[in-house]
């Protein structure tokens, strides 16, 4: 089949264009499907429960979605290079505690504290990538170990204490609304990051290089892409985004608590995979990740409104991930069939 399609590539460029268009269509149809599911579920929640579409609930939902999107993107960027990051939650909480400490005890201005926090997140992520490149051990074990190390260090240093005295401007950003009573400023951050990543993977050379590493490492190396550099870059980016998610959460909660981040792992995979990001690398769905987070967070919120216990919602999250990967699998099978049929 592979040789077949290569022959076809040489013989008929028009066909290749058709193939590319078909695969784009498949991806956009995934996203259209997601959008429809989101719309239907929201209507159902509004009809069954009360107040799902009230401006207060939409505001709360928007704040949660903003954070979940960034968590999902922080996993997506490592999935793009065919790796994973089990330390997203650990990096997130380390950045939360560090930024909280800078603002409360060192009295660093909020913007500078945020910048330093993001830098620490990127550094922690880069270290994961560096370890993988230097030792050749797979990212699962590396990030499993560093997640434990980062969390342990954070607990040792903070003695599991919290930072609760944060500047008003910083916490106001995460609690107020802008333009109308339903829109949180956090949403602008999430949408901005999504747009930036969309641009990186669609138009920037760097994005293409990272996808090339994820799709076929050998081929990428042979065509002059530095695989180690791309791996470290992707992990650093993942750390940066995990840190950003932490800072958004900190701004919303108004206090830095060491227990944050412990439940990020599952949602970090659910959003990108639901959105159509391939687990084996080489394919990302940036807008899909946004929609995936919107679906999962919306459903969690809706189940809460129809008074289903949060424990059963965890079951739902697990099932959502299973359904998402099965759809992904189905997509791969059908698109293979299409290739064969051509």
């Amino acid at each position: 089949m592979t040789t077949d399609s290569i022959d076809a590539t040489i013989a008929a460029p028009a066909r290749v264009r058709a193939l590319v268009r078909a695969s784009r269509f498949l991806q956009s149809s995934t996203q259209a499907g997601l959008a429809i599911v989101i719309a239907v579920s929201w209507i159902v929640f509004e009809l069954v429960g009360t107040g799902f579409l009230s401006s207060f609930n939409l505001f709360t939902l928007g704040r949660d979605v903003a954070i979940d999107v960034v968590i999902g993107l922080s996993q997506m960027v490592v999935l793009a290079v065919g790796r994973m990051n089990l330390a997203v939650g650990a990096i997130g909480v380390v950045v939360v505690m560090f930024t909280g400490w800078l603002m409360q005890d060192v009295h660093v201005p909020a913007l500078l504290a945020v910048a330093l926090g993001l830098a620490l997140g990127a550094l922690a992520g880069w270290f994961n990538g560096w370890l993988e490149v230097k030792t050749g051990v797979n990212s699962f074990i590396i990030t499993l170990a560093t997640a434990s190390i980062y969390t342990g260090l954070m607990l040792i240093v903070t003695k599991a204490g919290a930072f609760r005295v944060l500047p008003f401007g910083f916490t106001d950003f995460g609690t107020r609304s802008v333009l109308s009573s339903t829109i949180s400023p956090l949403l602008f951050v999430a949408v901005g990051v999504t747009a930036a990543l969309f641009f990186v993977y669609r138009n920037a050379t760097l994005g293409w290089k990272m996808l090339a590493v994820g799709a076929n490492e050998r081929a990428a190396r042979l065509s002059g892409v530095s695989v180690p550099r791309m791996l470290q870059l992707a992990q650093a980016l993942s750390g940066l985004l995990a840190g950003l998610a932490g800072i958004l959460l900190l701004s919303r909660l108004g206090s830095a608590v060491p227990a944050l981040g412990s439940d990020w792992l599952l949602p970090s995979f659910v959003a990108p995979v639901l959105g159509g990001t391939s687990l084996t690398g080489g394919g990302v769905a940036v807008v899909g990740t946004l929609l995936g987070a919107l679906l999962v967070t919306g459903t969690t919120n809706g189940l809460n409104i129809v008074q289903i216990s949060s424990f059963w919602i965890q079951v739902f999250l697990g099932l959502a991930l299973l359904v998402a990967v099965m759809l992904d699998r189905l997509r791969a099978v059908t698109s293979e069939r299409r290739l064969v049929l051509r």
Partner: protein
Amino acid sequence: MTVLSGRMPVRATATTLVRAQWSGLLLAVVAGSVALAVSTDNFATQFNQYTLLRNLSLTLVIGFGQMITLAVGELNLSLGALGGLVAVVSGGMMDAWGLPLALAIVLGLALGAACGFANGMLITRTKISGFIITLATGSAFAGIDFGITKAQPFSNIPSALVTFGQGRSGGIPYQLAVPILVALLMGLLLNRVRLGRHLLAVGGNRHAAELAGISPARAVVWAHVVSGLLAAIAAIMTVAQLASAQPTIGDDWLIQSFTVPIIGGAALAGGDVSATGTVLAAAVITLIENGLVLENVDPYWVQFLLGMLILGAVGLSRFRSARVRSA
């Protein structure tokens, strides 16, 4: 290299001992015990031995639960959640339903094996990576666990089970019988039983194993069934130790379950695990935890050290395999 003299086998045994991957671990266990016995007053007391061996019992069974999936080149992220589910279900059967102890235990173990079977079937039928499947089922198990208990523990546990979990004879906890049995059976399974050899063959080279007539799907399902069963055993041991079936049981098993077999010398690519190494690794980890408690060190160091141990162990095995290749 013909063996002529009668002394050769002895020397050969000594060489094997030194060359074995776990020789360093054995040294660490001995040196660590001596150091702790000298530097602290409480290490050598019967009560501390009891505490140490009780923790070791649990750590070991949890480690074996992950080792068996690593053997076949898989992993089980749902181990802890599965354990929690078994703990509350069997606890519930004893407390709320008043089932006989033996029946509740058997049903609990069966539930663990069934959950493992579900993991294995989902992985082999859908061909989705075991990482994602067990991440998802882990969330589902934990959700069901908390959903049926509403986060409340079952505390009316039969006294026979509690005696077994908390009783001791001198410095030896009764519970130690379980990990000894498990370790023997696992050693036997991996070295002497056809199924165990098949698991390792599939873990070592799935394609070659398939060509040799071994079904990889069957091996993967079996590994997950055994993993689920071991998680269930660990869960019931914890219920016995705590005298209560708490829904939070298993929450902190994940990192431990990987640390034990990885330090014990299991290759993550599969096909290479050592039951002896796993036992010694569990002993090292338990000693470290015990030492930190005895020296009054912040308990948060445990988490940090577990991570460092994993990195150190993988780094060391890389170094060793690089030397073997260049030799």
